[in-house]
């Protein structure tokens, strides 16, 4: 089974790996130690020490809190801003910018590229801690904010990674 070193995985994450190597990695079966190497690299880059359990966006992580309540699984931005428990939609705690008028739409979709604000709006979710744009969704006006992803962490750890996830204190 293929296994790649820390530097290779880091370059892969940053898109700095030559195409041939990237393709060869994609064509192989997934290296079985990839997940934890990947997590280690992400862990080096965030400003908090709570262990990352699963990345759920480019700057968003489900982590096990070190502080109180200890072990609680919360969603955090890389800047350590906390969005609450992972079973609740983190977006509800983000700053939201809705592009639903022609002027704002034209900033990103000028002229004929524009969309009809009666039919669609773009919602941008921004971290209140560091102002990073974390996620963008397109939905019909009035549609509830989309809950993208509720992972089954226990099963994922047990069946796919072969490790038990430490229990979360209630």
């Amino acid at each position: 089974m293929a296994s790649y070193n820390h530097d290779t995985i880091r370059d892969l994450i940053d898109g700095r790996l030559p195409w041939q190597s990237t393709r060869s990695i994609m064509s192989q079966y997934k290296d079985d130690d990839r997940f934890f190497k990947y997590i280690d690299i992400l862990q080096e880059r965030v400003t908090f020490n709570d262990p990352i359990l699963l990345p759920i966006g480019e700057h968003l992580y489900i982590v096990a809190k070190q502080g109180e309540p200890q072990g609680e699984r919360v969603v955090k931005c890389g800047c350590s801003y906390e969005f609450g428990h992972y079973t609740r939609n983190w977006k509800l705690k983000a700053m939201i910018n809705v592009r639903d008028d022609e002027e704002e739409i034209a900033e990103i979709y000028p002229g004929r590229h524009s969309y009809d604000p009666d039919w669609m709006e773009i919602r941008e979710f921004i971290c209140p801690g560091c102002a990073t744009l974390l996620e963008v969704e397109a939905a019909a006006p009035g549609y509830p904010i989309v809950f993208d992803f509720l992972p089954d962490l226990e099963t994922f750890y047990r069946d796919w990674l072969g490790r038990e996830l430490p229990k979360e204190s209630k």
Partner: protein
Amino acid sequence: MEQSTPLVLGIDAGGTMTDTILVDKQGNFAVGKAPTTPGHEAEGFMESARDATDLWNLDTNKTFEELEVILYSGTGMLNTLLSRTGKRLGLIVTRGMEDAVLMGRGLQSWSGYSYPDRLHAVTHAHPDPLVPRSRVRGVTERVDQFGQVVIPAYEHEAVNGVKELLNQDIEALCICCMYSHVNPEHEWQIGEAARRVLAENDVDVPIYFSHQLRPIIREQSRLNSTLIEAYATAQGRDQLLGVEAAAKQHGFPHSMQTMLSYGGLANVRYPRLHETMISGPVGGLLGAKHVGELVGTDSVIVSDMGGTSFDIGAVTRGKIPIDDEPTLARFKLNLPTLAMDTIGAGGGTIVKVDPYTHKVSLGPESAGSVPGPVAMDMGGTEPTIADCDAVMGRLNPDNFLGGKVQLNIEKAKQVLQEKVADPLGVDVYEAAEGMVNLLEMEARSSIESIISTQGVDPSEYHLMSYGGSGPLHMAEYSRGLGFSGVMTFPFAAAFSAFGCTTADYLHRHSQSVHIMIGPETSEQDRGEVRWQINKIWDDLDAHARSELVAEGHDSEAVTCEPFAMMRYTGQLEDVEVTAPATKLESDDDLDRLTQAFETLYETINRSASSYGEAEAGFTIMELGLSARVEKVKPELTRRPLGAAEPKPKANKGTRAMYYNRDWHEAQLWEMDMLEPGNVLEGPAIVEHPATTLVIPSGDRVRLDEWTILHYEHGD
């Protein structure tokens, strides 16, 4: 070796080693080896040639004087292309087509990929263009498909374009206009303008015209052919001329030859040198045709299993089908090539087991020669087919590559256990045989698919099996296919090289046309059609002859065989029809041409009774001819049949071999000690420094008077 008349010296300059095969008139071989000397190829060439002549105690200079042909093939040009270290090109195209270099053909983004990678578009990527978009200029012009000028060529745009390209220090200029294969007027005009600009600036860069390289329809392939010729062949040609000079210094009286993708020899000064870049598997087909004629069969399936790939081709009733648009380094080309299929299956093919699903798969990755299979102990860590063979006792650990490499069976077994047998939960030997069977099954189904596309009953074919790993797996991959015979050769590993030495001097010329012959076509129009066909054949004939005469052949010795690429009008693919006569003298001759097409079409597909004549009509898409000058060929030695029992000195004892889930005590034989008439009963293993033939229990092998091994399956 007494009484040897050296005939052909074949050189294959690879990335690391230069291999030489010296063949004499009697069909004996000597194989030489020397390290390739990049930058000074002539040195490696001479060293390798000396290594071969020394084997026969021949004087090198005398050998060079006697040789008829030196055939040089190398991967130099291909490497130039793959490593993108060719010339700095500029390109002029019809305005509006400038992005063609970037867009390419869709299939170029996945060509050569495994089936799973083809399905997963995330792995798809276009090859880097040979000329960046910034060095492409458009010129307003348009010729329509009938060759009429719709928009004249705007010369001032050409002049400006060339000036801008010169400012970017181009080393060669390519010109490719739409429909230039019908009417090259605009390409000439742009070329003239370019020459004036070059003269004014006192710069000398070569100009390549697409219609000259290959006047064939399909813009993208014509463009690719032109770019590759300009990009990659210049250095290669210098290298070839250097090697030729070295050979001449040692007394070689002729010009050196290279092998073309459609199986002909061409002088190294040949103007379309990119045609030599896909010549790898060609030798096997030529060799098979030659040996087939010798033993009296004109239909042969060839199967070449080496370290990385399994190549399959067919010779059907003496004809080898041509692939007109092959892919080279992931570029689609307009280049006739002897058709061969290839799958990633060979001795070095890596065996993989999916950790989650336990699905087993083979390759297409190969361990190559470095690091090679685990058993070679050169750093290989992934189990390969060769490791499976070694573990099962089918390879001799002390005589691999003639004993040059000692196989580490224990290590292979350990890796196989850990990475294949344990995840699957089976015994290591069972796992090894399972993997080998999987490879043999893939090989067999690829043979089946090639037979079914020829429209010929397998019982009309003989199967020839060669390549280093061919004889090792032929017993199973040929089993149950119903061939009329299965053969292999003592020199199986060198069969492709041998095949190359049987080639004739052969050049192929063709021209795209669009000629329709319908049921309603009047006699006068049919006369017109005949005139047009004859005119093109005549022109090509004159051109082909002058090219061969310029290469030093006698005009009398040239025979030209015209052909037409034909289809029923409205179809998308054509077939190559050999013309019934070199000239269509009468209206009947035209009928004979369409009849020849129908006969061929029915052989390949099924009867389309009078579909062309009464309904759709016929379309000719391309007219061409093959111009050939015969060359002396090596002969295989014919010896009287002797006793069925091999001489005692051929006997090398016995070895335990795993086959069909059981261990057998296999009789070992030395390949080179076997003689005509010998019959070997399985279980047996025949060893040769470069190959191993495995005969399971129940099967047997018979040697005929040419010392060809005939494999006979038991019930």
